[in-house]
């Protein structure tokens, strides 16, 4: 990479246009000021003959553009929050997977009145085994491998229901799958270079829940408190609440050190946490039919949770942007008491 590519090969080329199109992720003012410089540097670095930006280049540009937008809003903490939220999401998924596998999938299928899928009650066992494997991957393999594994876990989570429907096999209910898919989506932002906590938390939570499940079964002595997915909505709601409370607690602790990433992570996870309680909330609001909420009630509650989650995030971003603008204006308006000089520099974010 010692010599840049000759400009004649790339200037005005389709490749340059394609790089310029990817600049949409940046704020328009930034595009106008820095676009030529950024695209020129990309053209310097690409190998001769390339016609399209590589996927890594596209992701780099999109990520950098989004960070620049958040920087303009004074909300860079949100960018730092994604890996935190992803780690919490994977840890929760690993714990939930261990619980469902031990307490539901390995239970006698007659409890749920289902035709068993091999040794399991439903095809959901494949999903939970998959997420446990992702948790194990997070502990021992590089971050990029874990992200790929998480993408496979998410794919598995959203593929199993149609496969179950097509093959006539039983699958987990939607009130389990939807929050699992929401958390799976969050895991796509797992850190590239995970620290000790990000590596140890997923296996630790899975191991703890597995141990607690085994101890509970032993203490139950043949009891049947958890026999099918239908017996778990309360516990799921508690798991979602616990996840949110723990992340909020960590966020408040970090906020004391002027780091708001943890609070943004709590806000990001508010929606999946709410989805864990959607079944209970539906029953509380609309009443139950045959032991659970009606499909329409559940769909309405889930849609409302998604809308409220998105609105909360948008409101927090708008509030942060307004606060940032106010602080910036105050700095720019403030004249030096000695010489009357006014700052023209941007405020640090």
């Amino acid at each position, binding site marked *: 990479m010692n010599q840049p590519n000759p400009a004649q090969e790339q200037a005005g080329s389709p490749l340059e246009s394609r790089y310029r199109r990817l600049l949409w992720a940046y704020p328009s003012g930034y595009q106008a000021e820095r676009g030529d*410089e950024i695209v020129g540097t990309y053209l*310097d670095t690409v190998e001769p003959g390339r016609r399209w930006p590589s996927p*890594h280049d596209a992701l*780099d540009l999109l990520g950098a553009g989004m960070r*620049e937008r958040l920087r303009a809003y004074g909300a860079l903490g949100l960018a730092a929050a994604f890996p935190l939220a992803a780690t919490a999401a994977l840890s929760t998924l690993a714990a939930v997977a261990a619980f469902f596998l031990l307490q539901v999938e390995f239970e006698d299928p007659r409890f749920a009145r289902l035709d068993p899928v091999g040794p399991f009650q439903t095809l959901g066992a494949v999903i939970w085994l998959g997420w446990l494997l992702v948790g194990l991957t997070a502990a021992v393999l590089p971050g990029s491998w874990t992200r790929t594994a998480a993408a496979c876990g998410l794919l598995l989570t959203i593929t199993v229901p149609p496969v179950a429907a097509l093959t006539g096999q039983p699958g987990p209910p939607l009130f389990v799958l939807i929050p699992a898919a929401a958390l799976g989506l969050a895991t796509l932002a797992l850190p*590239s270079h995970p620290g000790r906590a990000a590596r140890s938390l997923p296996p630790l939570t899975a191991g703890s829940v597995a141990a607690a499940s085994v101890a509970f079964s032993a203490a139950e002595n043949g009891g049947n408190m958890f026999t099918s997915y239908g017996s778990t909505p309360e516990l799921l709601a508690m798991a979602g609440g616990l996840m949110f409370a723990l992340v909020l607690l960590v966020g408040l602790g970090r906020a004391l050190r002027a780091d708001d990433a943890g609070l943004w992570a709590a806000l990001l996870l508010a929606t999946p946490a709410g989805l864990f309680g959607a079944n209970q909330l539906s029953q509380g609001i609309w009443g139950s039919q045959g032991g659970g909420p009606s499909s329409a009630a559940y769909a309405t509650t889930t849609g409302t949770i998604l809308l409220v989650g998105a609105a909360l995030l948008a409101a927090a971003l708008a509030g942060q942007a307004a606060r940032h603008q106010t602080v910036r204006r105050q700095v720019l308006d403030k004249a030096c008491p000695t010489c009357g000089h006014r700052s023209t520099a941007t405020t640090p974010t």
Partner: protein
Amino acid sequence: MATPTPLREPTFLILTALARESMHGYGIISDVAALSGGRLALRPGTLYGALDRLTDEGLVERDREEVVEGRLRRYYRLTEAGRSVLTAETERLRRNVEAATQRLRAQPAGTRTADGTSRGPLTIPGTAARPILRPTGGPA
């Protein structure tokens, strides 16, 4: 926002690249790759985000612009504050290296092999030629 210390490796290498002379984006990318022995390949989006942050923190500033063969080149240079931060970080790393070197030299005789070479937990087969610092990607 104050620069967090210790500096992350990409930040340290960007400041190091600018310590000798002002450079444009491609020059910094090439120099950081060379300084890290090829381990750290910064991408332009990441680099310019880091340069913006370092500019906000007063460690780096714009030097000059030129257009070469139709491409805009903007040069960046280290500020006095940037030079101070890099000097302090280099001194911190040097002290760590010296401390580690002294400890390794003072290794008890029982942990040395018959031919006099040391044999301890830091010797990992097949990794002798690898750098000890972990490669760091993402935002610099």
